[in-house]
């Protein structure tokens, strides 16, 4: 087998690592079986140098083929051998030094010169690129030299490879350029304050460097950047303030206008300020300030969207970096490092949680996260990303879930979207589906994912069931549905609840239902089948004048179209009464067939919306260059229903929790009760204190509890 390994800075190398270590297992056995020849230092160094040079070439963009897995393994093995040879041939120390030297050499010969010759914004761009490359280089070289990390550095209590690599950049590059960088950044910000467009992404990347260089401590950011930033900001705003004061002394109507302008026009400036100052706020646990800022911006129409998405990205990046840093710090076994990272993580965690749980543009973060997963997991979603990238993203998503308080809401949205993916065959990759479920299970427990797993299993069983059905049909040629029929039988408990409407099926389909029903009776008599027509798909042939086109539609759409087999022209009312569906459904259906991309039906009048007075005619002239097209039916917005369902479940959960607590404690004060309730339920959602209060009162009315006669803040359990 040969794996082609791609160097891509955005790729996490975890999968790479596993692949290599698995391959390494084979290698190891081979080595043990053969006799090892001692590698001497010169040879070893030269060999490694070849690999390092190849890496540098790739980073510089020179024409250099990617590393093959054999090359990779050879490099790794060389290091391994050289470290495990018997003295005096154990070269761990030398290799450790070599590792550091590789960076130093590269930086001094290539990186620094390229930075020195550029200025201002170009210099910033170069810096960002170089830093990014450097990180890749660190990652790769650390992999080659990995064996040192395992034993040598712990034995000698040395900094690990990762840290050494990053420190090189800090000591050589950062110390030299940070002054220039800071000035360039401040000048960029000033430009924007004056109303020019600047590259915000660049700014963000540069500021990230400041933070990352700190490697878990904010000193670099604070001392080198923030101080001057804040000074400059203060100076800028005091100038601006004096201007504003002048304007404010104008008559009233001008005042209002200015105020409006101040907020909305200068929102960008303020945003900028907050953008740079946000680290300070986050670090100092200035939750109150952050929420004040949030409130301020919520007053501007749409002022909140940019800031919250910016924050979200920012804090997400920060959070995951920190999580990783905390991981690294912990594994370093350096007590101080860990504490600092831990404290900072805590402060950031709390602020992070707050932002995670603020909604963006009307959607809760739980819903957004579920939608995000859906986009990744469905077909056409992320086909450009490699498997590893997808895995990595899913990993991040699950980690993020820990910060979301409405986990149950996420679960419900996820379940709904999963159902759609599974039933409409929109899932891109079964492996990924299972993988994220495993991750969710690990993080949130089996109960969280049991239904979803049930859904995935159901589909597998359904396939089996279908093959039995097909067998049955071939054995009983007298019962034929007349059409190719595939039925998916779902277990009710696992799937979201679906309303089943009494759709009037076309005659052809009625037969199908009958045939399947008979078959199912032969399998089991103890189950009840409820048909959910809203989830079915049909392939029908539209015999249009130009040519026949196969249409992939939902059962509802098919039923609508088949009506036109009997009559060329139908009114809205006729269609509705024939189908026996609600107005909402009929409007959606007809819209998808007459006002969307593919106009299978011609609507009169030819407006963009459906009204109950329209008439429809079969569009015999319809054609498309494809021979088979899918006509989508946009799903109903499930958001409201999901939230309703989750709210209902929460009420039950709160009730149960209160009763459980009171049953065991018998007598408990109100605040204590609330606290315990919140704790008990915390795994799935953060119960609103008012909601708990309401449930307590309901339970009092239902005679589960009563208030203590002497102290109205204390409750008693009524057996």
């Amino acid at each position, binding site marked *: 087998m040969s794996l082609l390994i791609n160097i891509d800075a955005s790729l996490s190398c975890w999968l790479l690592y596993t692949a290599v270590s698995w391959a390494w297992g084979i290698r190891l056995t081979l080595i043990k079986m053969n006799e090892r020849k001692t590698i001497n230092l010169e040879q070893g160094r030269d060999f490694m140098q070849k690999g390092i040079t190849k890496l540098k070439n790739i980073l510089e963009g020179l024409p250099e083929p990617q590393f093959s897995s054999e090359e990779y393994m050879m490099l790794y093995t060389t290091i391994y051998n050289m470290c495990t040879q018997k003295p005096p041939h154990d070269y761990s120390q030398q290799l450790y030094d070599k590792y550091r030297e590789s960076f130093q050499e590269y930086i001094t010969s290539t990186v620094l010169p390229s930075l020195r010759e550029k200025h201002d914004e170009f210099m910033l761009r170069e810096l960002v690129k170089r830093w990014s490359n450097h990180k890749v280089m660190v990652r790769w070289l650390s992999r080659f030299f990995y064996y040192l990390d395992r034993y040598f550095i712990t034995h000698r209590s040395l900094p690990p490879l990762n840290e050494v690599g990053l420190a090189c950049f800090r000591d050589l590059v950062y110390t030299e350029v940070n002054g220039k960088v800071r000035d360039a950044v401040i000048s960029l910000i000033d430009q924007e304050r004056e109303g020019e467009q600047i590259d915000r992404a660049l700014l963000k990347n540069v500021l990230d460097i400041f933070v990352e260089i700190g490697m878990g401590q904010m000193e670099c950011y604070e001392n080198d950047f923030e101080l001057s930033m804040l000074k400059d900001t203060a100076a800028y705003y005091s100038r601006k303030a004096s201007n504003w004061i002048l304007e404010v002394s104008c008559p009233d109507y001008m005042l209002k206008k200015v105020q409006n302008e101040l907020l909305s026009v200068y929102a960008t400036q303020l945003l900028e300020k907050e953008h740079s100052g946000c680290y300070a706020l986050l670090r100092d646990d200035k939750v109150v300030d952050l929420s004040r800022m949030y409130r301020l911006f919520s007053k501007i129409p749409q002022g909140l969207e940019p800031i919250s998405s910016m924050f979200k990205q920012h804090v997400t990046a920060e959070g995951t970096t920190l999580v990783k840093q905390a991981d690294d710090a912990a594994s370093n076994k350096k007590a101080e490092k860990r504490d600092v990272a831990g404290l900072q993580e805590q402060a950031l965690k709390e602020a992070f949680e707050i932002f995670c749980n603020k909604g963006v543009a009307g959607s809760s973060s739980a819903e957004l996260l579920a939608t995000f997963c859906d986009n990744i997991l469905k077909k056409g979603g992320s086909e450009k990303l490699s498997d590893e990238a997808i895995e990595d993203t899913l990993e991040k998503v699950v980690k993020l879930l820990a910060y979301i308080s409405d986990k149950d809401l996420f679960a419900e949205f996820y379940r709904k979207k999963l159902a759609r993916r599974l039933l409409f065959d929109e899932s891109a990759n079964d492996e990924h589906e299972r993988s994220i479920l495993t991750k969710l299970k690990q993080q949130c427990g089996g109960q969280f994912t049991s239904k979803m797993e049930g859904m995935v299993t159901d589909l597998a069983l359904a396939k089996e069931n279908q093959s039995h059905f097909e067998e049955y049909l071939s054995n009983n040629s007298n019962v034929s549905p007349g059409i190719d029929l595939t039925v998916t039988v779902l277990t009710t408990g696992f799937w979201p609840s679906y309303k089943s409407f009494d759709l009037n099926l076309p005659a052809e389909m009625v037969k199908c239902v009958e045939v399947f029903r008979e078959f199912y009776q032969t399998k089991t008599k103890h189950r009840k089948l409820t048909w959910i027509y809203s989830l079915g798909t049909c392939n029908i042939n539209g015999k249009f004048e130009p040519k026949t086109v196969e249409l992939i539609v939902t059962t509802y759409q098919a039923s609508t179209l088949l009506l036109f087999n009997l009559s060329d022209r139908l009114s809205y009312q006729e269609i509705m009464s024939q189908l026996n569906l609600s107005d909402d459904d009929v409007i959606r259906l007809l819209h998808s067939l007459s006002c969307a991309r593919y106009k299978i039906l011609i609507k009169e009048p030819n407006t963009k919306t459906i009204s109950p007075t329209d008439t429809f005619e079969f569009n015999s002239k319809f054609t498309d260059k494809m021979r088979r097209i899918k006509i989508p039916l946009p799903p109903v917005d499930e958001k409201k229903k999901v939230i309703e369902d989750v709210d209902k479940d929460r009420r039950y959960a709160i009730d149960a929790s209160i009763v459980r607590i009171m049953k065991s404690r018998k007598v408990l004060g*109100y*605040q204590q009760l609330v606290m315990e309730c919140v704790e008990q339920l915390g795994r799935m959602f953060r119960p609103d*204190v*008012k909601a708990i209060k309401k449930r307590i*009162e309901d339970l*009092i*009315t239902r005679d589960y509890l009563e*208030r203590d006669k002497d102290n*109205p803040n204390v409750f008693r359990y009524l057996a």
Partner: protein
Amino acid sequence: MRRGSSKKGSANSTTSTNSSAMDLFRSASGKAATKELERIDQLFYSYSNESSGIIDPEGIECLCSDLEVEHTDVRILMVAWKMHAEKQGYFTLEEWRKGLKALHADTIVKLKKALPELENEVRRPSNYVDFYSYAFRYCLTEEKQKSIDIESICELLELVLGSQFPQQVDLFIQYLKTQTDYKVINMDQWMGFYRFCNEISFPDFNNYDEDLAWPLILDNFVDWVKSKQS
């Protein structure tokens, strides 16, 4: 106006013919007592319904007009309380006896005279809580009914607390009529409001702490008032 009704038999008196003074006294007082009972009963029957044998809403209306109080007057409610009357709009013989005996009233005139004293008695803090909760229960007319609709609650509040805490009651009634969260009020909320009036400073609500176990409707009420004030 009294309803015409036939006199039912008066209670038989059993007098002892013992000649001792004590006995005389006892018999005299016993006689008096019996006489009182008799009159109480007679009064009862003058208002009660012939077929059911209890005083029904019509009878109560007559009683009220004889007493020269509105039948919506709180004093009637107080009388009911004194009687421990169970069912709104009805007085049984037992209840009637209990109430009037306690009030030392065996005629309409005496009953009327007893009303101010009764009012004082009820308004005593130790009794008032009891009266207040009684008022609520008295309005639970259906079997298993646990709460009262907003409309009736507003009336009851006005009746029972209107004189004591007029401003709070007015505001609260206003709130109840505008809010949509609650369609009924239960006993816990009802009692909570009384406690609220007694404990919380008005109109600033400075000492109100919504982190305590005040009924949620009061939390919402305070929020509503505060937002109105700002």
